[in-house]
């Protein structure tokens, strides 16, 4: 499963901690950054690397920075949190959640949002098993060939080989060439006597 990144912004320690704990509960594979400083927050979200932003919209610093917030391209990733009174914004949030909601309502809303990223986009569900093509490439990797050499042998572009390699690593959970070689031997893709480095 892919790593999902969250940014939590609130000046309140209790709210930050609480939201982080809830995210941990429903989503195991994540990185959470908790931020209490406005300028640091804007700096971070301008980088556009975050999957979701959990924003405390009651805090005065944010209400002052609405125009700035609108210029950030990530507004479509913001989940807004408020306390009792929802402040008026002309920004479209994916969801607005009152922190007074009971547990099941909070979970229901969050699951609705995060379920979306969990589900495969337009049928592009990649299976965990490696394809035949990937097995071909894996065999060459294990035999000690470089990306360029593999590309030449299989009549592919180097770029395509690199993409395949990334997918192999992600699927198997093995990053290094020696690790991939052991996998190839264990799965009889190559014979132990053929390998140069092991």
């Amino acid at each position, binding site marked *: 499963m892919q790593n999902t990144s969250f940014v939590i912004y609130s000046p309140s320690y209790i709210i930050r901690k609480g939201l982080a704990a809830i995210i941990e509960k429903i989503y195991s594979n994540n990185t959470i950054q908790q931020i209490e400083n406005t300028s640091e927050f804007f700096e971070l979200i301008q980088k556009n690397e975050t999957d979701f932003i959990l924003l405390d919209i009651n805090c005065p610093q944010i209400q002052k920075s609405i125009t700035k917030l609108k210029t950030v391209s990530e507004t479509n990733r913001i989940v807004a949190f408020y306390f009792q009174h929802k402040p008026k914004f002309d920004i479209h949030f994916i969801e607005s959640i009152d922190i007074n909601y009971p547990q099941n309502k909070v979970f229901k809303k969050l699951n609705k949002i995060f379920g979306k990223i969990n589900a495969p986009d337009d049928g592009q569900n990649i299976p965990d098993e490696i394809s035949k093509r990937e097995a071909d490439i894996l065999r060459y990797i294990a035999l000690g060939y470089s990306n360029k050499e593999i590309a030449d042998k299989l009549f592919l572009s180097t770029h395509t080989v690199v993409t395949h390699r990334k997918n192999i690593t992600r699927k198997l959970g093995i990053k290094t060439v020696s*690790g991939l070689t052991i996998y190839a031997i264990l799965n009889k893709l190559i014979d132990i006597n053929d390998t140069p480095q092991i």
Partner: protein
Amino acid sequence: MIITKNIKMADVIHLNYHTLSVLNRFNIYLGFGDKTIEEVCNDKNVDINFFLEIVNTFVDKEYFPKKQLQTFSVSLITDYLKKTHQFYHEVKVPEIESLINEMIETCYTQKENIVLLKKFFNEYKQELLNHTQREEEVVYPYTLSIEKAYNQEKIDSSVVDLMKNYSINIFKTEHDDIEEKLYDLKNILIKYLPQPKNVQLCNKLIHELFILEQDLNDHSVIEDKVLVPKIRAMEKHITKKLSK
């Protein structure tokens, strides 16, 4: 929970037993009765602030050292880091090796495959050795020279050359991912190696690999949160002083 000097040393271990190996690096060994951290540190001639920084960083992932607590010297940090290196090479790695050897000796069905794992681990061992050697031969001496220059009235010109060729930011970027092979080894054992006969041995090995990985992570946290910011501040100060 933040650990303070008035807490009993015994409670530190109850709180998180992984601190045991940390205590040993300070030459603190079990049997301290009801003594507090402060008392034990005084007995053993250990800098209390430094001890608290290390233990807190180790116990609490989100702990961030306070600037006013960073009073201790760079050599204290590098000595500690060197001790962790020693711990990997003299304790953890041999432990893992002997487990793998035991697996080879007792397993008849998977012998060849486990021999492969052994070779793989040997490669890793060499990588780890190169990594720690580079730190001890290049990085730590650099940090010590920076500290020395920082404390001098007049800054020696040799430091200028030194800083031209290296900086703590370079260390941060070149600090390579030493955990990759460890990660692979864990996954091969967990997902792909046909289960050897001796299940307990295999479990023990995986357990040890997780512990080593965790300790390596904690080790780089000390470098990133304590050593790097400290040296960066000193570099800044020196550059400022030089430009005057």
